[in-house]
């Protein structure tokens, strides 16, 4: 029950994003790019979920200036690096995130400033309840003796 109530705090209804056509196009592009970079570095599925969660929460906030075409790319880089730092053990440098045909390339300083903007906009809540939290919770209830389920999760 606490998982469900906690999920609501950081979960967005689809309607907020769907209502704006141009925003949806920008989002699709950025998410595609995020997925490519994650495949490139072999990050876990949770990193993916986190990065997209941060991205969605940020673009639906007031801090997001949609007029600038490079904005969504910068936000995507910042969200991805934040997610990697929260979840991964090996994190590339800021500049090295900009692979896989990144449309714009930003200086590390710029990305860092965006990281801070994202962090304060999301009120530093970087551990949202994700669908994976529920999977983990339910699997624990089965009480497997071996680590089979862990191996399964790693391959997700």
């Amino acid at each position, binding site marked *: 029950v606490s998982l469900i109530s906690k999920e609501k705090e950081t979960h967005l209804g689809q309607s907020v994003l769907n209502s704006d056509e141009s925003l949806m196009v920008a989002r699709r592009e950025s998410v595609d790019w995020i997925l490519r970079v994650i495949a490139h570095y072999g990050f*876990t*599925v*949770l990193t993916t979920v986190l990065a997209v969660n941060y991205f969605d929460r940020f673009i639906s906030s007031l801090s997001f200036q949609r007029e600038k075409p490079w904005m969504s790319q910068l936000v995507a880089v*910042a969200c991805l*690096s*934040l997610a990697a*730092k*929260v*979840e991964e*053990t*090996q*994190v590339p*440098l*800021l*500049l090295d995130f900009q692979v896989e045909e990144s449309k714009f390339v930003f200086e*590390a*300083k710029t*990305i*860092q*400033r965006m*990281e*801070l903007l994202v*962090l*304060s906009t999301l*009120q*530093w*809540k*970087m*551990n949202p309840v*994700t669908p*994976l*939290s529920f999977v*983990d919770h339910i699997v624990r209830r089965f009480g497997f003796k071996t*680590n089979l389920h*862990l191996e399964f*999760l*790693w391959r997700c």
Partner: protein
Amino acid sequence: MEKLLNWQYKLGKVIGIGAYGIVHRGLNLETNQIVAIKRFYTFDCKNGVPYTTIREISMLIEMYHINIVKLLDVISNTKNEWYIIFEYLDLDLEKYMYIMHQILSGVMYCHKHRIMHQDLTPDNLLIDLNASVVKIADFGMARAFDFPLRAYSPEVVTIWYKAPEILLGSPVYSTAIDVWSVGCIFAKMLMRQNLFAGASKNEHLRKIFSIMGTPNERTWPGVTSLPYYPAGLPEYYPEVISIIFASIFFYFASQEMLCMNPARRISARRALGHAYFKKKKRKEKKEKKMTILDPIEKKKKKMMMMMILDSVSFTFVVVVVMLTDY
């Protein structure tokens, strides 16, 4: 007090220097509350905001428990320097002997909120001397455990409080590592020295084995196939820990909290339910019942209970002092 910070806080003298920042004493000018202010070192541009900062703040911002250090604010000034404001606490652990319950409650709270601290050491436990409350701090190494971690980063947890499964290179680890650290801290509190203190990883492991006995397939299935399981170790038998600890409580601590096999190690929740703590709880429950039945007697009974609890902890401290002096 010299520097003014963001109109709201005054920056005072330095009270601690960590690997990731400097901690100042400070004053909230609006509420006159004394606070601790952690200043980040200037960020290294190549990496952006350090992951320890992100983890520490994001963990603490969602935790509210009496035994966890409270994060009051995150602020930046015009020069884009960032500060975290904490409640101010006195930093001393060794004087207090009956704080295990509080430490365990804090750890259990973290685990319940799917957070592993991963770096529990005496330095990271703060005490409010006035209220005798212990708080867990420094969540720079903490992580949420929705997902099992594959690769293990060996810097996690100061080596003396590291659980054997980490030292042996187990690919999976869990909240049990925090319980091991708590067990080591309890032992240190009693003995005024570290129970296991090896200079290197291997020496440390040998020390653990020489006291707790060398683990084998029977006591810990799968242990011999862990990557760093040292070959050709002498077969140590567990020492009679009760002689070292000579106290029922610490016997329990060593047997269950310092159990080598993480799967058999007691959880923070179960440790709290242990007989030692149950006595305390029963008293509290009794007290509650009484207050419901007899609200007028409430204060009297409460005072009596406090006296009993005090005398219990007093005798405990006496035993401890006697032990450490012989």
